[in-house]
Structure formats: C-alpha cells, structure tokens
C-alpha cells in the first residue's frame, strides 16, 4: 500500500456538496482531490475532499463564503 501521511479530509452529507467542493477548489486554484470517505471516519459510503492540512483555513473560508454544507473537517493519517 501507499505510504501513509496526515491529510485534511473534508466530509459532506451529499455527493452534490462534494462535487461542489471540487468545482470551487478548481475555480480558486486550491489543490486537493475527491477520495472515498475514509472508514476511520465513517463506515458509510460517500466521497470526501482530501487536501494538505495547511489548506484547512482556506477551505473553511471557501465553504462558508459559498454556503457549501460541510459535514466536518478532519486530520487523518491515511
């Protein structure tokens, strides 16, 4: 398996919100990508946004600014 490192993981209630985050980040040049929700967070399915932990403040501001509903921000070794 790939070597693990600490990532910021942003989770959502809906796929629409996850894709919305991807669109927003692409438009604003914020790095990251969609991944399956880590099962350490929930055994439920779904997708999450994975980014460098340093991006947290920028992503929180972006979500708040655009009214994007985020379920949670987590830092995980994955």
């Amino acid at each position: 398996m790939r070597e693990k490192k600490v990532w910021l993981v942003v989770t959502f209630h809906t796929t629409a919100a996850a894709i919305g985050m991807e669109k927003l980040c692409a438009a604003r040049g914020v790095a990251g990508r969609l991944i399956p929700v880590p099962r350490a967070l929930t055994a439920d399915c779904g997708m999450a946004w994975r980014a460098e932990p340093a991006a947290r403040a920028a992503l929180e501001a972006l979500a708040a600014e655009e009214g994007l509903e985020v379920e949670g921000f987590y830092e995980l070794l994955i």
Partner: protein
Amino acid sequence: MIYLDNAATTVRKPPQVIDAVVRAMGSFGNSARGTHEGALTASRTIYDARGKIAALFGCPRADHVAFTANSTEALNIAISGLVRAGDRVLSTDLEHNSVLRPLYRLRDERGVALDFVPADRQGSIDYADFERLLHPDTRAVVCTHASNLTGNAVDLARVGALAHAHGALFIVDASQSAGVLPIDMEQMHIDALCFTGHKSLMGPQGTGGLCLRGELDILPWKVGGTGVQTYSERQPEQLPVRLEAGTLNGHGIAGLSAALDFINEVGIETIHAHETALMRRFYEGVRALPNVQVYGDFARERAAVVVLNIGDCDSGEVADALAEDYGIATRSGAHCAPRLHRALGTEGQGAVRFSFGWYNTEAETDAAIRAVEELAR
C-alpha cells in the same frame, strides 16, 4: 414524417444531445458511487446539469434540484411528499392525469379533500375561482403552467401570489412549458416545480426533475441506495439525495445537460417566438375552415398547441388519416386530460392535437393546413 406531436415528446433533438448521450454511455460510471474517473465524470455532469436547471427556472439552490424519470414521477414526489392526511388541495380542470391521479389517490387513501377550478368550453379558467376555492385548510395549489390539450397558459405569478396569500404551497406542472415559456420560481412564488426533459427541453426520454424552493418538509416517494450514509436505516435527510434513491439516469442527464446548453445558446424567447409563429400560422389557416372546430384561448400567452375536431368525426380516425395519407403525426383521443375534455364537451369524440416545436417549419405547417382543409371537405 411531418412531426406535429411535440407536446407528447420532441422527436428531433439537437445533435449535441445525441452526441452527449453516446459519449456518456461510453464513459460514465455510476454517479455518487465512488471516486474513480468514471464515477466522478458522471457525478460532475449531473452536478453541472443541476446548476443549469436551477438557473433556467430561478431555483435558488442547485442542490434543491432532484432528478426524476419524468414529470409524472416528480409530481408524485411533490404531491404525495408535501400533502398530509386530512389536508385540502386546490387544483384545476386543466390538469393531466399525472396531477389528477396522485390527487385522487390522496383523496382515497389519506382523506384529502380536493377542489378544482373549473374550465369553460374553451378551456379557460377564471382566476377569481382560485380566491373563491382557497380555504383556510388548503395545504397546496397544484396547477399546470400550460394545458397539454388546448395549450392555454396559466398566469403562474398570479396563482402563486394567491396561494401564498392563503398560506398554501404552490406546486407547478411545467411539462408543456419548460424551455419555451419563462419560469422564475421566486417571482412566480413556486414552491415545487416539476418538469420533464424530453419535451420542449429537447433532452432524452427518462429525464425530468423536481425543483424545490425553500426548506420544505418533503417525504421521499422512494427510498434506497444513495451512495452515502449506508448504515443509516433511513433515507438521508439532505437534498437532493433525499429524493434520489437508486442510480440516476446519468446517460440521459448528460443529454439533458447538452440540451440545456442548446436552449441557452438559442434563447427560450427565440424558441418560443418560432413555435408561436407556427402555431398561429396553423391556427389562422384552419380556424375559419367549414366543419372545423378549434378549442382554446388564442388571445393570451399559450403553448404551441392547436387542438381541433372535424365535424363529428372520431378524432382517432382523423389522426389516422393524417398519419397514413399525409404523413403527419398528431395526437388524438383524450390526452390524459379527462376533466378538460369534459369541460370542452369532447369526452366522446376526443380531439386532434397539433403541437409545434423548434424543428418544425412553415412548409410543414402549411402542409398540415392543407391536409385539414382536405379532410374537412
């Protein structure tokens, strides 16, 4: 074939719609089911389509656009999801069975009381009747934007304002108007807008949806797989997934998305003007013919539909002659509009509906006029 049955479905689609469906069928995974490229491509396309629908209809939130298979499914979700046992609902004689049957079922199964704004012999309604029939316990007004039988349009802003003034929700069936008549959910006070993708939106069959304004407590009509919240025993609360159990028609929605691009490029005003010009050309060509009776109000805004009868001929025989002898496709019979046919007095005879679309021409319209003229002799 001269296709004048666009109110049933548009046969000719913009080429980019067909291309988009073909591309999607060769590349789409299941939307909301994973983060590999195939699944994400489907999810992204559907996300974009939601945004385009929201923009077209003035729906304040793109994630309040839920995709369905058609208007009927959207109307079932809206009506059965918003009306509770013992409520009262106001509707009209103009409605299609996709509105009427869900309402009749609520009446039979949940004791919902129904009131109907009557139509006259030209299929027109009196707006004062909405005021008269709105009761303190009226939970919702369910109304079509344009009759699928006569083409008569309803002033939605006026009805929506009346509904809200009486504390009722406003549910709209936009099957005959989406893509050709302007719709603004905010300005028209529409709480739930139900549309189909395969008629004047010129998308594939099997596409449609429901747009919701505001935070409505709407019960899902179906529950099941969503790709999220797997271990919850209940359907997720959040829109749009709350109303979208099961795999979406991603291939169809890709086509619908391309159709929306086409409509935005051409402009719904241009499309409406073209269809209206053909509809009026046809109307003027047949209205004074001896033995021809045209139904409907042609003095106001309307969809591009002309419905008529020839003498006392069975409408099915007329439509069959048009198809077999002239190669003209129309729709005869009752058009799933039982209350309006009764109002027009055409329950026995039915009527022959000519409906015009973006791809019809003046030459086709003139051929249809000549055919009616010959058949009416």
